[in-house]
């Protein structure tokens, strides 16, 4: 599904939540929508979903969302940031969504199982009684099983455990190439694995719009943490700018591009002296440069 948001502006009283935001999501694109809290991400998603009215136009395959939402709704699936607190049992909620989308509950159960939640075992429990992670998995399963042409995912893995997050990534990667994905996320691993395009919102405006690798190069920084003991290891780590931490741990931040080389060096030089290694990416507060803008 091809999505166009043209000159979207939204005010809540005197507060401008979105100012002249324009985006194009081509069919099959995978886009991350990121930005600090209050930057307008959720508002933009809700405008796209037709839950909020706004100035400007939202078109999905040329159809205005505000005019014919019910016609478009079967082609769009949504995982909200905050899982709803239905009093209905899990069975009823799953049945309701499957019924509305015109398929059986079996695909939802299958996907949920892949995400690590057994819908049948939880069938009689009130949806609101599930843990945050379980609710998010069921919601993700309902969206992924829908066969929708546009998936809108608002921080879909925020409450998931690492194993389920891995399964979720795998399922999104398995989606048909024509499926358009819009992902609101702060997690760099999600951006790295799931998207090819990044849009940054700040104060209700598009502050950055470019491909994902350029964004990661501009904004991501690698953190390498090493637990090592022994004089040679300490000298090697100090020589490469590692800072000493507690319980034998050392850490160093470096550009993402240099991480692989450092880890390879580490493996060669400190073979047998390293007890553990953790490498992760974090978002840099100050990007290297301004980066591309829309």
């Amino acid at each position, binding site marked *: 599904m091809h999505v166009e948001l043209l000159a979207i502006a939204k005010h809540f009283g005197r507060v401008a939540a979105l100012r002249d935001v324009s985006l194009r999501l081509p069919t099959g694109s995978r886009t991350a929508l990121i930005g600090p809290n209050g930057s307008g991400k959720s508002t933009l998603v*809700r405008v796209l*979903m*037709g*839950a*909020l*009215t706004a100035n400007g136009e939202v078109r999905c395959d040329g159809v205005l969302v505000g005019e014919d*939402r*019910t016609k478009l*709704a*079967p082609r*769009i*699936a*949504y995982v*909200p940031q*905050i*899982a*709803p*607190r*239905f*009093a*209905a*049992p899990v069975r*009823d*909620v799953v*049945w*309701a*969504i499957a*019924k*509305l*989308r*015109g398929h059986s509950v079996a695909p939802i159960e299958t996907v949920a199982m892949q995400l690590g939640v057994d819908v049948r075992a939880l069938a009689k429990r*009130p949806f*609101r009684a599930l843990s945050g992670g379980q609710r998010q998995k069921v*919601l993700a399963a309902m969206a992924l099983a829908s066969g929708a042409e546009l998936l809108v995912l608002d921080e879909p893995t925020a409450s998931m455990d690492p194993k389920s997050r891995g399964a979720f990534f795998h399922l999104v990667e398995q989606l048909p190439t024509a499926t358009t994905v819009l992902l609101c996320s702060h997690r760099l691993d999600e951006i790295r694995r799931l998207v090819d395009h990044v849009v940054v919102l700040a104060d209700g405006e598009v502050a950055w719009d470019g491909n994902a690798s350029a964004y990661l190069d501009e904004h991501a920084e690698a953190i390498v943490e090493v637990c090592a003991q022994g004089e040679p290891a300490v000298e090697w780590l100090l020589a490469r700018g590692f800072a000493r931490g507690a319980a034998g741990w050392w850490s160093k931040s470096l550009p993402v591009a240099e991480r692989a080389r450092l880890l390879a060096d580490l493996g060669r030089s400190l073979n047998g002296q390293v007890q553990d290694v953790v490498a992760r990416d974090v978002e840099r507060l100050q990007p290297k440069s301004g980066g591309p803008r829309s």
Partner: protein
Amino acid sequence: MSFAREVAVAARLDFAEVLRSRWLVFCLVVHALLAAMFVLVGLRESGVIGFTGMGRALMSWSHALLFLLPLLALSATGQVVNTARDDGSLELLLANPVSRTGYFVGTSLVRIAALCVPLWIAMPLMALVGALAFGQEVPWSFLLRGMAVSTSLLLCFVALGLWVSTLVRNQAKALMLTILIWAAGVALIDFALIGVMLQWELPPSAVFALAALNPVQCARLALLSAAQPELSTFGPVGFFLANHVGSTGLLWAGIGWPLLLGLTAWTWSLGAFRRRDLL
């Protein structure tokens, strides 16, 4: 996606909410307690206001319901939409192929059923218990009149509750408004209005108009219309109206005006729900 299916899905999810909050059970218990009280206490021969036995018990119960039903209806509906909005269920459900109209109709039907079904069970049951256990003759016409008037009043206040929950986003403010509406409904009958008229020297026509616009007052007069119009039982407003529009007119006004008011409030709520921001 057919509209009926949308309504059915919304209704099933809301019915679970009704069951969880025990509204159905609560209404049944309230009606059962009231019915038991009036059957046991009221089934005695009495000449008061022209009713005896079962008729008197039903009349007393109906009068109690005039004050209770609006409170039940407002409590059951005054926070339906704004709660669903706050807890995220509205956002998720309406991101799926269900129209706002489908959701609103489904939810309204469930709330109406949760309030009306206990009443429709309890009233005839009370009459049957009176007939079987106490050998009383069932006044079927008054029973039907009481059920029709009570149902009309329930529908009116269900719609007013939905109106509040749709237009007032803040749940605490919505609760306050429903209490105010209930208080106005039960206070703006003869006694309070006459007091207001005397205190502020309002013209009697304004007081009569205010009283006649109050659906609770209309329902009360419709119930009383089965009796001879006497000033002591009808009160000044009722006595005036009974002598001008007649017994049948009072009955139709008591059923029709709350229904019309409810329909207006419900239509307004639906329009606002369809047009306004969901969140």
